[in-house]
């Protein structure tokens, strides 16, 4: 029920620190938007601005064409789940969940119905009379979700809600949150630094760094078509491998060269950089885009010396030194490797990424 629009929004503190700059973002109604980035990138600031907890220093924030800048948080139709849950310690679970409704003067019967409904959906009904300090982390998290759910708000905000949970719980909660988004059919804005979480949950991701948006797009777009080295390296586990080198143009063939390594670039890349022989570039190669099988063509293979072997259940990670740089690749378990072995890996050249060496900007997307 809400479309959120940032127009030229920025946030600056009296000591000169700029937390956010030039934010233009159009969040569609009912979309699940994830703000992704390292700590200090401005994602929480952006979220807090939607809630009204942080003042907009510059620019305008709109909910459905209504200017929200001067509106304090208690007059916005927004619900929020905090990283530390922020449950009211002196109230019971029931009262915690009911609080927002009470503050907005809903009738008591209505409150009771909604609270019990939410408690049932979250499977916390037996906990309603307990205090937060009697609950486990996972239970507290559900109460926090319940508190936000019952409000049936126009916008549902979540600030790293899963980061305090253990790994197994985190995965199952992701699914629940996704499910919640479907049932509630409302706009979700979610902040995280965990790229796997972003890729799982988001309809669209906004990648941020140092207060500036790096790229906005669907998970697929962000992953497959990163606009700069930061975005490319932030998504993907293990992180993308980089090799610095130069472009070599021979007629209509363009290749990447570093020392003894030469990789032929596919046509859709070649046509963009056709006339730039000698240009300094950075090659991006994802860990999973190599293979140990397939017909090795000389200009589609990387050679290197194995420096480490890490089995990870279904595959193995190989640490390989290629032309003097350490790289990490993910290969199948069939072949056994030892440190010091020489290995040749076939590269899927259609999935190569190419960036300008200095600016880190993608030369392809």
């Amino acid at each position, binding site marked *: 029920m809400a479309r959120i629009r940032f127009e030229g929004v920025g946030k600056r503190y009296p000591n000169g620190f700029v937390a956010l700059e030039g934010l233009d973002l159009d969040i569609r109604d009912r979309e699940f938007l994830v703000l992704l980035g390292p700590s200090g990138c401005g994602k929480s600031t952006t979220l*807090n601005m939607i*809630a*009204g*907890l942080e003042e907009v220093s510059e620019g305008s924030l709109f909910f459905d064409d209504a200017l929200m800048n001067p509106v*304090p*948080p*208690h007059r*916005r139709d*927004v*619900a*929020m789940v*905090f*990283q*530390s*849950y*922020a*449950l*009211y*310690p*002196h109230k019971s679970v029931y009262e915690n969940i009911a*609080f*927002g409704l009470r*503050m*907005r003067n809903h009738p008591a019967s209505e409150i009771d119905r909604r609270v019990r409904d939410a408690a049932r959906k979250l499977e916390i009904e037996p906990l309603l009379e307990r205090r*937060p*300090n009697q609950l486990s982390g996972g239970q507290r998290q559900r109460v926090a979700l319940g*508190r936000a759910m019952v*409000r049936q708000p126009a916008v549902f905000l979540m600030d790293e809600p899963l980061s305090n949970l253990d790994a197994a719980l985190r995965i199952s909660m992701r699914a629940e949150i996704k499910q919640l988004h479907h049932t509630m059919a409302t706009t979700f804005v979610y902040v995280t630094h965990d790229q796997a979480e972003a890729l799982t949950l988001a309809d669209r991701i906004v990648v941020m760094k140092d207060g500036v948006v790096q790229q906005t797009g669907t998970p697929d777009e962000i992953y497959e078509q990163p606009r700069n080295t930061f975005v490319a390296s932030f998504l993907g586990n293990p992180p993308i491998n980089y090799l610095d080198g130069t472009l070599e143009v021979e007629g209509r063939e363009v290749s990447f060269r570093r020392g003894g390594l030469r990789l032929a670039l596919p046509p859709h890349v070649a046509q963009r950089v056709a006339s730039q022989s000698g240009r300094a570039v950075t090659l991006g190669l994802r860990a999973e885009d190599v293979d140990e099988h397939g017909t090795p063509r000389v200009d589609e293979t990387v050679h290197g010396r194995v420096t480490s072997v890490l089995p990870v259940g279904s595959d193995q990670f190989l640490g390989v030194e290629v032309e003097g740089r350490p790289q990490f690749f993910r290969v199948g378990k069939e072949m056994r490797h030892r440190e010091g072995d020489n290995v040749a890996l076939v590269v899927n050249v259609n999935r190569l990424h190419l960036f300008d060496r200095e600016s880190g900007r993608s030369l392809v997307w």
Partner: protein
Amino acid sequence: MTPRGARIGRSLLLLAASLLFLGYVLAPVAWLVSSSFQSESEITSKPPHWIPHQPTLKNFEAIFGAGERDVTYETRRKADPSSGGFIPSTAKNLLPSMWNSFIVAISVVVLNLLVSVPAAYAMAKIRFIGRQTSIYAMLVTRVIPDIALVVPFFLFIRKLGLLDHVGSLIVTYLAITVPFSVFILVSYFESLPDELDKAARVDGCSRLQALLRVFLPLALPSLVAMILFAFLTSWNEFLLALMFTQTPASQTMPIVVASFTSDFTISFSFINAAGVLAVVPPVILAIVFERYIVSGLTAGAVKG
């Protein structure tokens, strides 16, 4: 030394230290209480009777009954042989003065709550312009000694004609208790998680509602500590009360008790009884709320 020997040694050391502690703290008070139950003749024995051989309630009767008797020089001598007859004419003022002290203390506490609580919340949780200055201002005013208030307040109150009025004490005490009250509360509020405040506001609380419905219940220990400090300061304060009160209409308890001590003809047992009465209310309060004093002064960790 064997482990068991070390443990016994430690226990003995602690016991000895505890006894010394208790002795230092309680012995003078115990003697005060004991003296108050002794008659004049007994109290003047050499060496003193540490425990009264013939305990008597006559001293307390003299205080509580003082209003009914007409005290003149003649009646004083004749009245009560066992107490030596030296009961001051001002004795009847003691109970009314305690009532004055009580009124003043309660008013100061209530006003402190009204003034200090919102200010502390704002300074702790709202990042407003001028916040740092306010904090410095609050700290600086804690430093001003009561002596500096004497002359200006006296002249001003005199000009207003409020010199013998309980109200002037209330306002003055408010001025000297607020800085410390705010300090206690701010420290404690700051220790409460910011996210609670945010959650409350997103849940629909205005700033005032967030303060009343979320923060106050959680800040109870510091509130109790603050109330206790404000009450005791008002109850015990002497210098300013001395300046601003002139008749029993407004005199507080410390003034009346002090007037006894400066009269050399008064019976010792009577003074001690007055002392005990003066001591009882604050001590009861302190012991009952002892738990809150320490926890209210230290920022407690509240997990939400």
